């Protein structure tokens, strides 16, 4: 079957893991061809670690790396006034599958490349 498996991970589910465990879990799933959607974002240190781990896992023929996209939301602040943005969702997938990504400030549309067919998600 030619399909795309998407894993949605809540921030609560991730908070019980160490950074290393989080990164391994993400890379393992993405390397297996899955699209991982995380509630919230990774810390800058975790992002660097994710890129580093991805580089180690790249296998020239089968796994060429990852693509990461984020959707931001307004950060809650005291008295409800804030111009700062926080990451609401992080989407990480295999680079060869995530193609034609259209990202705007509060909208992300992606066409997944599934070989002969294609799947669209918004």
């Amino acid at each position, binding site marked *: 079957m030619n399909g795309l498996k998407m894993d949605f991970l809540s921030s609560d589910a991730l908070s019980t893991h160490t950074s290393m465990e989080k990164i391994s879990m993400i890379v393992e799933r993405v390397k297996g061809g899955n699209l991982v959607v995380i509630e919230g974002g990774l*810390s*800058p*240190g975790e*992002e*660097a670690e994710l*890129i*580093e781990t*991805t*580089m*180690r896992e*790249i296998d*020239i023929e089968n796994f*060429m*790396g*990852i*693509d*990461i*996209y*984020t959707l931001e939301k307004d950060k809650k602040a005291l008295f409800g006034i804030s111009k700062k943005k926080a990451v609401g969702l992080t989407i990480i997938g295999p*680079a*060869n599958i995530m193609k034609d990504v259209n990202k705007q400030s509060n909208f992300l549309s992606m066409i997944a490349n599934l070989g002969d067919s294609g799947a669209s998600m918004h």
Partner: protein
Amino acid sequence: MNLAKYIKSDKMQNIFRRFLNKLLGKDKKLKIGLYGHPNSGKTTLANTMTNDWIGKPLGLSSEIPHETRKVYKQEHVSVKHNGVELDFDIIDTPGIATKIDYKNFLQFGLSETEAKERAKEATKGIIEAIKWLDDVTGVILVVDATKDPLTQANITIIGNLEARKIPFVIVANKIDLPEATPERITSVFPQHTVVPISALHGENTENLYEAMIKRFH
């Protein structure tokens, strides 16, 4: 004051100065890392800088992405501006990316074996560049002004620099190209110092050197 007293007082002043320098962090050697995407012009800028200051280039640059796959270092570079001098080492790092497809190199005339070899070396170069973030004391983030600046690699680099409190200057490079829009970089990173330049033609590099003195001194 007799000579012995003078020497003693001079010695005390030196000790005091060294203590102050240590306290203010001036004793720490400045290591300025050039970071950015593959092909954003890091090596071209490193060459322009070393040519301007010590009269020789640092590394090879080319049209093919991931030309720099190892970290290059030039020690003891000095820049002067308005009487202020800045001594530092330049660290030219491989471009940071989240993916590497060897097929992209085939269009530049490389054989499949060469392209695969380059891709493997590029993955190691990216790991090395990330590791160097632990060692640099200042960063010039080179962004190609003809492309979208809001990429994961740029966001990750900036996030890490902020988290580690490493001072940095963003360079909006390639302003000599008609499609360049440096103002887009300024608008997406309004809280940071952005300097539009052409590393290739040495255009506006004076402004960059001035910004470096301000941010890194």
